[in-house]
Structures are given as C-alpha cells and as structure tokens.
C-alpha cells in the first residue's frame, strides 16, 4: 500500500511546481522588505530639490517631481503606506467577513438575513460610496482604512459563507455536536480551520483590491496629505500637470501598484489551483 502524502504537502508541491507561484511570493517578500526597511533605502522625501521634473538619471533613478523631490524615495516610502493601508483594511474586512460568513453558514436562521445583506452590498457600486464617505469624514489614513474595509467585507463574507456551507454539513461537525460540543467550540475547532484556506486567499486578494482602492481615493485627493502613498504621488502628478508630460512621475508608482497587485493575485490563484485536487 502506498503512503499518500498529506493534502498540505501535496498543495505545497503543486504550488512550487508552478513557476509563477514562488516568483510572486518572492516579489511580495521583496516589497515587504522594502516597506519595512524604507529608512535604510532612501531619505524621507521632504523639502525641495533644485532639479525639478528631471527625467530618470544616475542620481535620481526614478527622476524628480515638480518640487525636485526624488521619485524613487517617494515610491519606496509609498510602499509602506500603501501596504499598511491595504493590509490593515483587508484584515479588518477579513475579521468582519469571517464573522458574518461563518455565522451565515453555521446558523441557519441567520443565513437568510445575512445572506441578503451580503448580496445587497455586493450589488452596489462601491467606489462612489467610498468617495462620499471619505469626503465626509475627512482625509486621513485611519479613515481610508475603515472606509475600504467597510466596503470590502461583503466579498469576504460571500466566499467564507460558500466554503462554510461546504464544511458545516460534514460528518465530523455533526458528530461533535452530538458529543455535546458548544457552538463556539465547534466553530473554533472545525469550521474555522475548514474555511482557513479560503480566508488565506481572501486576505491576499482583499489586500490587493484595497491597495487599488486606496490609490483611487488618494488620486481623487481624498487621501492623507501628510503621508506618501502611491496614489498620493499620482495625485501630485495630476495636480501639477505633469501626469502626461513627465512620464516618470506616472509610470513608476503605477508599476509599483501593478507589481504588488499582480503578485498578490498570482499567489492566491496559484495557491487555489494547487489546493484543488482537480486542477493540481
């Protein structure tokens, strides 16, 4: 009789085999390092420089902006803010989404009401609402985090609920119930681990969407004026009229956004494929 490998091991192997998986993880880790080590890589962009709107060169790898500040430093420090906002918003969304999703999957009565709420939230155009709220609450990092989180949790809840609905009817769950386990215990011991893979994927996907949302809101001027984020760099370029002329002020922050979001999504997709025995 052959010894079958554990599902975890199989997933890991499948993940590794697809070249896109490890590469994306590497890119994400690199960006994480850049975010954490920002002070070591570049000076905080402040004040002004003499070389205004200079194209990329040896001294300024990404060129300078309309106040002569180094764009490379802006992108590096922007990594911090964009990732932090994205991650914080997504974690908040995850917490709420998991709560709602698990509750809907586990408690049949709650499902009807919660399901409706989730569905309704999903069918609304979210960006205009985010804009309304951000404009009202005033621009700051905490506001952005909360606003993005509030409009991202329904997607998480939908996915968690779907997975939860697959887990809850499983025999070991009803067995635990018969053995006298409390709801909370069952949820913690069986349901949560069951939805964990989906949640993991959700964290990554929601973060990438949150980064895009933050960029959008900052671009519109609803971001925090005191902090550098990729969206703020673009907002600055738009306001000073350099968006279409000084291509480096537009290209590099856009590439940074693209890189982060693509890597995060690839990790999620490859992981999903690796996890599913049919697509391994």
């Amino acid at each position, binding site marked *: 009789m052959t010894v079958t490998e554990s599902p975890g091991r199989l997933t890991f192997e499948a993940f590794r085999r697809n070249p896109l998986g490890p590469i994306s993880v590497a890119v994400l880790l690199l960006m994480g390092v850049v975010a954490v080590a920002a002070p070591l890589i570049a000076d905080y962009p*402040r*004040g*002004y*420089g*003499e070389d*205004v*709107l200079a194209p990329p060169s040896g001294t300024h790898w990404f060129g300078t902006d*309309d*106040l*002569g500040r180094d764009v490379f430093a802006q992108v590096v420090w922007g990594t911090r803010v964009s990732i932090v906002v994205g991650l914080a918003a997504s974690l908040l969304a995850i917490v709420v989404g998991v709560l709602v999703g698990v509750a809907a999957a586990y408690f049949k009565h709650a499902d009807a009401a919660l399901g409706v709420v989730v569905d309704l939230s999903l069918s609304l155009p979210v960006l205009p609402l985010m804009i309304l709220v951000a404009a009202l609450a*005033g*621009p700051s990092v905490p506001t952005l985090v909360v606003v993005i989180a509030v409009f991202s949790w329904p997607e998480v809840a939908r996915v968690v609920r779907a997975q939860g609905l697959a887990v809850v009817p499983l025999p070991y769950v009803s067995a635990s119930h018969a053995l006298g386990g409390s709801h909370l215990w069952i949820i913690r011991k069986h349901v949560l681990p069951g939805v964990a893979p989906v949640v993991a994927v959700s964290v990554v996907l929601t973060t990438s969407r949150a980064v895009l949302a933050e960029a959008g809101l900052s671009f519109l*001027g609803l971001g925090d*004026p005191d902090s550098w984020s990729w969206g703020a760099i673009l907002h600055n370029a*738009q*306001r*000073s*009229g*350099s*968006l*279409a*002329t*000084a291509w480096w002020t537009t290209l590099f922050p856009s590439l940074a956004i693209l890189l982060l979001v693509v890597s995060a999504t690839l990790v999620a997709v490859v992981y999903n494929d690796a996890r599913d025995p049919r697509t391994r």
Partner: protein
Amino acid sequence: MRRILVGIASIALVAAGCSPSNPDGESSGGGASRLTIGTTADVVNYNPLLGNSRTDTWVTNLMYPRLMSMDMEGKRTPYLATKWEYADGGKTAKVTLRDDFTWSDGTKVTADDVIYTIDAVAKEKIGIVAGLIPSYTNATAVSPTEIDFHLSQPDGTFLDNVGFWMPVVPKHVFEKAPSVQKFANDSNWVSAGPYKLETVERGQRYVLKRVDNYPLVDGGKPAAQEVVFRVFPDVNTEALALRNGEIDLIANAVPPALAKTLDGNDKIKTVKVPSLGWAHMQYNVQRKPLDRLEVRQALAAAVDYEAIRRVALQGSAVSSNSSVLTPTLKQWQDTSAKEYTYDTTKAKQLLTGAGYKDGNGDGLLDGLSFRMIYDQADPNIAKWAQLVRDSAKEAGIDIKLEGLERNTYVAKYQERDYDIYAGSWAIMDNPPANLALAFKCKGFINYANACDPALDKLIDEARGKLEQADQKPIIQQAAKMITDQVYDNVLYVEEFTIAHSAQWSGFLTQPSELLSIVNPQSIAQAKKG
C-alpha cells in the same frame, strides 16, 4: 448562445434607449473661424452680479459690459464709460457713457441700466460690490448717457470700485425677477458684449456667437465667428488637447511645471500675465505671543523667499519686496521698499533677545509653536507651506501645518481660528479701498486682526482724497507701516502662464487671471493666422 445574445441585447437596448439626443446642429458654414477655449470648471452661475468661479467670470464678461476696464498697470481705462470725475467736493461722482452700446434684443444700453444695477446691488447688498460702495446713496440720470452718483461723504475709491467691479445688467430683463440676487439668468440671455451665449451643454461646452455691432473692435465685428468654452476637469488632458490642436487657448493658468514643457513647443505660445493680488502669510496679532513685534519679525526672517519663488512657483512669481503695493500696480508701487531678509540666525537672536530659550534641548525654542492654516486644494500654497515649516524649524520655531478642505478653511478664517493664516488674494487692485477692508480695525478681510489707530487714520485720510496723486503718498506711508509692523508678510506676486495656439494672435493682455487674454476686447480682436 441565443440567451447570451438576448442578455447582451437587453443591456444594449437600455443603453440605446437612453442614448443622448442629437444636438441641434447648425453648421457654422464653410470658412467659419472658431476660437475654442479650454477651462477646468463649468459655469455655475449666469448672474454676473453674484461672484463665483472663474469660468463664470470669463463667460459673463463676454456678455455684460462694465463701466471701466484696466490696463497692464492696474489703471482704469474707458469701456462703457468714456469719462468720469468727482464734483461737489467729492460728494458727487459724474460719469459719461458711450451711446453706441446695444443689448442683443435691440434696446440701447443707457444710464437707466447702470442706475438700476447699482440700486439693486446696494438695496439687496449683493456680493463684494455692495461692500465696495458703502458711501453710495442714490443716483440720477442727467441724460441717457450721463449719471450723477450721490455719496454720503467724499470717497475717492467709489469711481474706481464701481467702474471696474460692477457689471451692468439690462434693466428691462432683470427687473422682471422678484429679486436680482435670486435671478438665475440661465436662459434667453440679453447681453451687450462682443459675443452672445447661444448653446449650453453642461459639462461639455458653452457656445457663444458673435454680434455685429460691438463698439470696441474695429469695424464693429469681432474676428472670430464663434467662441466655444470646452470643459476639461483634468488640466493634463486639457494640455494634451491644446498640443493636439483641439483647443486653441487654455483660460486657466497653466501649472508652472506644465508651463515649462509647453514653452519648448513651437506650436504653442505662452503669455505671462501678472496677478493683481499677492500670496501671503498673516500672523494673528490678537494671539500671544504674536502680539510682540520681535516674534513677528523673527517669523518674517525665517522664510526663504527666494527658494519659494524659485522652487515652489518654478520662477513664475516676482517679489513684492514685502510691500502690499505690488509691482503690478505701477502707479502705486513704492520703489524704495525692501524685502525682509532671510536670516535664521538673526531670527533666533531676535527671539532669544525677547526672552525665549530652548529648555529641553530639542532645537526648538519653548513656547513658540504656531498653527498655520491653508487651503489644501491650493497646490502652490501646499508646496511652500512645507518650505516655510522647514526653514522656521532652523530658527527654532515650530509651525504645525493644517491643510484644510475648503469649507473648514473658510469657517476657520472667518472666525480667525488660527495663529498663522496662509492664503492668496486674486485681485487687490485699489489700495485705498483694499487696505481699508484688509487692515482697518475689524475689517472684513483683516486676517491679521490688526487694530492700529495710526494705520486706520492714514487709510481713512487716503480714502477722503479724490485724486490718485494725492492718495499715493499717504497710501505708501500706510504700506510701509504694514511692512514694518509685519501685519502682512507678502511672499510673492504670481505670474500666470496662459497658453494658446501659435495660430492665433492679436490678443490684448490685461493683468489677473480673470482678465488675462480672455477679456472681452482681447477676444473680440483675436484672429487666426
């Protein structure tokens, strides 16, 4: 497959059913010349007496005449009025009008229209104009082209104010509305400018067609048959449209960085237009320790004026030598004025001399922490505010920046809730009138909260004089006092860059972004080729 198609079809039907209707097209005919002007905001309000956005002013200026215009030095020049003077020791102002202006419905523009307008403004207290004519009581039409304005006291600012700031509206149209202030005037326009407004497609364009009898252009007929204002919310797209030839002129001042790239393009010409106002910081003297002169002087010495003009404004600004009489107003300027010197060591000396110390060794003098408010939507100020904060730090002064969104900003400065106010004036063209509002005790725009009896006396004296030559020395004295007492730290006078296609010429440049090359006379005489 069918089902997919039905699904798609239903969506398409919805979209098509609601598709926008055709415009009424009247082709302008072959050889038509059209001047397309780009702007970043829609017209919000068609009533010229209610001040609003720049686009409002550009469009309504092309429709409603004013008594006077302005030359490049800020001096009033004839427009609807041909001559004006004071009489009765200054208690009467006499104005003579041209007789060849006609409203677009055929009625002549007469003294009745002017008197109707000023009476409405005074009675309903409309806008800034009402604030500029406090001494007005009533007026009589001596003839269809002569008016006597009666004033409650000699006021040497009255004529310049009412002449330039008050557009004249048609009495027979506006009097039909219950209140001039509430009259929207958003259709069936009756105007007396070089062009009349024909079509409005909100969010897209405003089409004006020329009239045949505009007195202020040779031959009575403006060169361009049509003027179209096209709305671009994004200045980057607007610039691309200019480069592509889709628009011929950008009415809003081009940001300095963008201006530099357009300079090198030989299909585009740029015109430098000086501002009639200035950008400044004012220190709230009613708050300690800003009531102490040494503190204000130290703050003034801690600003790198050259760097602000060179970097934040990209050289599109000139120094006013720290005087409220700017170089744009040549007839008022005091050439002996000198700018505050940027010297952080001197600043520190002034402060330590006044008794301030750095107790905790953090590089900042204790008790010197100031809140500075500014409109964060203003890109220029947002930039130099940071420079100001950084250089103040070197002098041991802590400035906390508060970039506010517009409503909060307005609310705070109206309540004088700040230590330092950073902002800019668009037009301060008449010092005797402006200084009164800006520096007299409890003046409406007195953001320094200055209350200096000696200063008030000088300003009142100047206002009582009827000739500019008599007002000038007194005003210069007042301006010097303002500089010495640091009631206003004038940082720079902006130089706007207005860009237009090289194919068009003949523009007449006037100061300020509100006039620049889009003033009515300029547009009337502009031609292609």
